[in-house]
């Protein structure tokens, strides 16, 4: 998976004459991927539980519209335009609506027994229609200033200092986790991996984090913006020009946060264990006393909440809530999840894989734009890559399984 990503990156970089692997392009790539990444983390659990959600793009659309109307029309009437609470209240309203939609889907699927494919296919149409209906098709803009930070851009990055703080914290977390896991296994007397292997694994992870930090910190703000910030802080602009780095983008941090939370849910909680058990063998889960219906509902509620988070990123980035927002996102999200190794048969999949899958899709797309390919050709390539990627994955998997048996 990582190898495929590196291959694409290097290949596209060569073909586009070195325009791809630049801090600027990589930074933009990370921002563009964030919204699909957030939804892909939830889609992993949906597909692992043997369901599907075709409505995520439309849910993003309707939730984005709700958040747009809340912050531009509803809340300002109550608290004025510059209230510092507007962004959080708008986000909360969106998350509530997203969760409610997920709850509705989940209940129909789990308790009324309508297949998820049908429920969410209906949802695809219903929620797109609702998004139009809220404002009769009018685009809502502009968004609240604080809200817009969630979308990235000049204001939506945390700067180099905080990027270093995040990077150092991440490295510390990786090291502490590795130490803790090792100590725990030692306590109960399990076999331990050799020390060098642990060091290599943790070292690679840390190197990855630091690379991301360095890339984010080497993409400077536009000179005008830098000057404005310098003026606001009372700094003197040196004659050779000022360089202030973007640092990590807020939407990227949100996406990584979503990835960590959903991974935690999947791997370390009963809920996650039951989702995988349900996907592996629904009958076994039921006979073991797992409330499979409740788990199904919770999976869809989580999906709805993540759609709301993705909607916040997407409307904030566009600085508007439009009717067409999120159109076709369901396909990108499902494709990212499947490319990331989640089996449509259920029971198998990782959140990190799906996030990488989203990055692969977006890399291809943005790479082809840099190479100047026509849109129809782009679609053809993305479609082919999806099919080939899943085929290769299947091939690889059947081989390793045979080896194990």
């Amino acid at each position, binding site marked *: 998976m990582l190898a495929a990503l590196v291959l694409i990156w290097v290949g596209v970089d060569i073909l586009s004459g070195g325009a791809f692997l630049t801090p600027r392009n990589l930074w933009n790539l990370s921002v563009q991927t964030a919204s699909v990444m957030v939804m892909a983390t939830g889609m992993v659990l949906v597909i692992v539980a043997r369901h599907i959600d075709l409505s995520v793009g439309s849910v993003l659309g309707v939730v984005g519209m709700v958040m747009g109307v809340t912050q531009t029309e509803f809340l300002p009437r109550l608290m004025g335009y510059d209230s510092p609470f507007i962004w959080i209240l708008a986000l909360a309203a969106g998350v509530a609506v997203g969760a409610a939609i997920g709850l509705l889907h989940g209940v129909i699927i789990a308790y009324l027994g309508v297949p998820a494919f049908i429920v969410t296919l209906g949802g695809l149409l219903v929620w797109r229609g609702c998004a139009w209906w809220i404002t009769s098709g009018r685009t809502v803009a502009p968004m609240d200033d604080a809200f817009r930070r969630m979308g990235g851009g000049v204001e939506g990055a945390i700067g180099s200092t905080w990027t270093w703080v995040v990077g150092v914290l991440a490295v510390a977390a990786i090291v502490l986790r590795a130490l803790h896991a090792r100590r725990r296994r030692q*306590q109960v007397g399990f076999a331990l991996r050799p020390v060098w292997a642990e060091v290599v694994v943790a070292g690679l992870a840390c190197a990855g984090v630091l690379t991301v930090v360095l890339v984010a910190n080497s993409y400077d703000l536009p000179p005008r913006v830098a000057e404005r910030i310098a003026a606001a802080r009372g700094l003197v602009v040196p004659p050779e020009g000022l360089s202030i780095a973007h640092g990590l983008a807020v939407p990227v941090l949100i996406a990584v946060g979503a990835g960590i939370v959903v991974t935690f849910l999947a791997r370390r*909680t009963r809920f996650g*264990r039951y989702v995988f*058990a349900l996907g592996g063998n629904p*009958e*076994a*889960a039921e006979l073991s*006393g*797992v409330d499979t219906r409740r788990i199904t509902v919770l999976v869809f509620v989580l999906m709805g909440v993540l759609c709301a988070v993705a909607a916040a990123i997407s409307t904030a980035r566009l600085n508007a809530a439009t009717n067409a927002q999120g159109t076709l996102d369901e396909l990108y999200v499902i494709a990212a999840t499947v490319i990331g190794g989640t089996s449509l048969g259920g*029971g198998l999949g990782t959140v990190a894989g799906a996030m990488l899958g989203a990055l692969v899709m977006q890399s291809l797309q943005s790479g082809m734009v840099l190479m100047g390919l026509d849109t129809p050709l782009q679609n053809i390539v993305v479609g082919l890559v999806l099919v080939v990627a899943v085929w290769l994955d299947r091939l690889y998997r059947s081989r390793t399984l045979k080896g194990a048996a």
Partner: protein
Amino acid sequence: MSAALPLVAMRGMSISFGGVRAVDDVSLDLHAGEVVGLLGHNGAGKSTFIKMLSGAYHPDAGEIRIDGQAVTINSPRDARRHGIETIYQTLALADNLDAAANLFLGRELRTAWGTLDDVAMEAETRRVMARLNPHFVKFKEPVRALSGGQRQAVAIARAIHFNARILIMDEPTAALGPQETKQVADLILQLKREGIGIFLISHDIHDVFDLADRVAVMKNGKMVGTAPTRAVTKDQVLEMIILGTRPSIQ
């Protein structure tokens, strides 16, 4: 043995599916440390009957007493609370999860933070499996990578780990080779010595004749009769299974 209060007493159990009486007024007892072989053709109603005890089906009529107390069993969870564990013919394992996750499915061990304590679960699993199958080493692999006997061992480990008093085994050796069948047989005798009451369900008399203290035979949803294994021959039991008639027992 029959003088003591039975561990399980099922009386007048009946259940219908869409107008078909799958089980019709069937009664059966099980004592502590006793192995009862429940025999009958496919479709005789033996699995359906026993699923009313394991909580998978709700009886239309009948009464279940455990240690003389009338109990209501509405779900597998209820059954487990009464110490009833079931090993299904399909083993009911989640193939994509490892042995520990399957063993603790529905009853996971958790840390003080409320998160799954995988390390503790694996340690427990290693302890239980050492007792059942000392050669078992594939603790990290999903159970789909295990052999039939190893999968059976995981299913049995899951049943006995939680101090089952009543064990239901549906075709326990159907999918196993001779070596593995012998292992399971030894295990059943060991559990019996520990005072666990065991129902062995099978359509093949050879699977249960040497292990069971008593045989109970069902046909067409009705109980043909029960007999101590000592007092009957295999041919007599076969007659019960095929003809549905009780032989005269001395």
